[in-house]
């Protein structure tokens, strides 16, 4: 009675016809990201003092399989330190064209300074624009380079096309909360 099996299959496809699609109309509707999505990097700061967590050790650059990270460290001025350690990252650049978003830098970082965030809309026109500096990645920066450029041009707020469901039960970390802390 394999015809019955065919009929069963036809019934399933017909019932799916009346189901709400699981895909979304992306630019209009925000994409729902998973909490552990690995997007554009964020350079975090210490809560309270607001000092940068990065101490310029270049371990992230060493761990990076795509050689996408370039760090240039400099000595901290003790009177006006950038980071709590002896040194800080004077230049911290990630080439987003090379980056494979594997999260090795995040794992290698001894201070938890570099964290992969949620942003992924980084399409741009020029090669040079894909090299993200410190100012593009420090916590509190909303949107990627092209998004901020557009927002500046039209004098609007940065529009981002995603939503993240916060799941505090994962490692007890509040993803959005930890990122919103800024100096």
């Amino acid at each position, binding site marked *: *009675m*394999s*015809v*019955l099996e*065919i009929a069963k*299959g*036809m019934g*399933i*496809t*017909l019932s*799916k*016809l009346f*189901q*709400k*699609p*699981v*895909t979304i*109309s992306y630019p209009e509707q925000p994409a729902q990201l998973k909490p552990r999505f690995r997007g554009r990097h964020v350079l975090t700061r210490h809560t309270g003092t607001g000092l940068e967590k990065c101490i310029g050790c270049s371990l992230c650059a060493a761990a990076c399989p795509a050689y996408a990270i370039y760090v240039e460290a400099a000595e901290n001025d003790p009177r006006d330190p950038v980071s709590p350690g002896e040194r800080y990252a004077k230049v911290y650049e990630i080439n987003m064209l090379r980056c494979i978003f594997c999260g090795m830098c995040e794992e290698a970082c001894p201070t938890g300074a570099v964290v992969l965030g949620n942003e992924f809309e980084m399409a741009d026109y020029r090669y040079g624009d894909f090299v993200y500096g410190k100012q593009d990645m420090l916590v509190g920066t909303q949107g990627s380079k092209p998004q901020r450029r557009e927002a500046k041009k039209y004098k609007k707020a940065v529009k981002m096309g995603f939503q993240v469901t916060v799941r505090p039960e994962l490692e007890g970390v509040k993803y959005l909360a930890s990122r919103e802390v800024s100096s």
Partner: protein
Amino acid sequence: MPEWLLVLLIVVLKATLVSLGLLTTFAYMTLVERRLLARMQIRHGPNRVGFQGLLQPLADAVKSIFKEDIIVKNADKLVFLLAPVISVMAALTAFAIIPAGPAGSFFGEDPWVFDLDVGVLFVLAMTSMGVYGIFLGGWASGSKYPLLGGLRSSAQMISYELGMGLSILGLLMLVGDTNLRSIVEWQAANGAIIIFQSLAFVTFLISSFAETNRTPFDLPEAEQELVAGYLTEYSSIKWALFQMAEYINMITASALMATLFFGGYKGPAFLDAIIPGISSWPFVWFILKIAAFLFLFIWVRATLPRLRYDQLQRFGWKILFPIALFNTMFTAFYLAFFPNAPLWILGLLELGFVALWLAFSSRPAKEVLSTRAPMGGD
């Protein structure tokens, strides 16, 4: 203006209208198919161009017209160009004979382009002509995969042509006329032929799926095996023409099924009690029936996986062909030996055969390819 010129002009006008209608239906058929397929796969489908993607066919047309038209170096240029034209021509011509309403119902004119007494045979002949387009296209491309795809496709179409023709024979014996209009009128008088020839309808349905190269039998388009079959070397508008031929064939098959088995342009007679004359409204019932069958085509495409080539041929020759032949012989036997018996008994018997077929339809036992006994070291 002489009489004959007027008639000619009207026929040309009707032919143009049918062509335009078919082309529009083809264009929107692609959109409807993509949307429905998408919804059956729980996606949205194309909804960007225009409201709900309604301009998508237009965008597709513009795209395929302005794409680079490649003629491969090894191609036989004339045949390569001619093949898609043959396909479309055969498809369009086949549809033109199918009546869309009773005589004189189209602004006083007859709602068909031409009327032949050999109607059914003509449709079968014209749809078979489509094989030439596919086969010549595959051959003229001058490369391997199109040739193989074209061969496969023509072998498939020729094999299923038999089943198709045989499943119509019983019907023709019942009606005693090959004119499509007589068949419709017979059905209006005696009830739709599906009641008396259900077995024939099942075989006809399956073979029309194979004839139009639609999903369970869309081997010419088996990407995994043959790239794109006979379409491999085609691009731009020539590719679109082949697609057009395929879709028009599908529409023709739907129209044929509606005409031969479901009462054609006549609606169900019991509705006349509610709204008088509704069953003989032209076009409405015809289009509704075609739409229902087109939906079936899409629905099946969304559900069934593709058959392997040997499975396809085995099914065609070992199952479909004998059953269609049996149906012909059985109907002939019934009509010859019990000329006065009521037809509903025939219908019941046919239904019984369908049930039997369904009951014995099962997956074929796993074939043992090699009977060689395992030896040492195996």
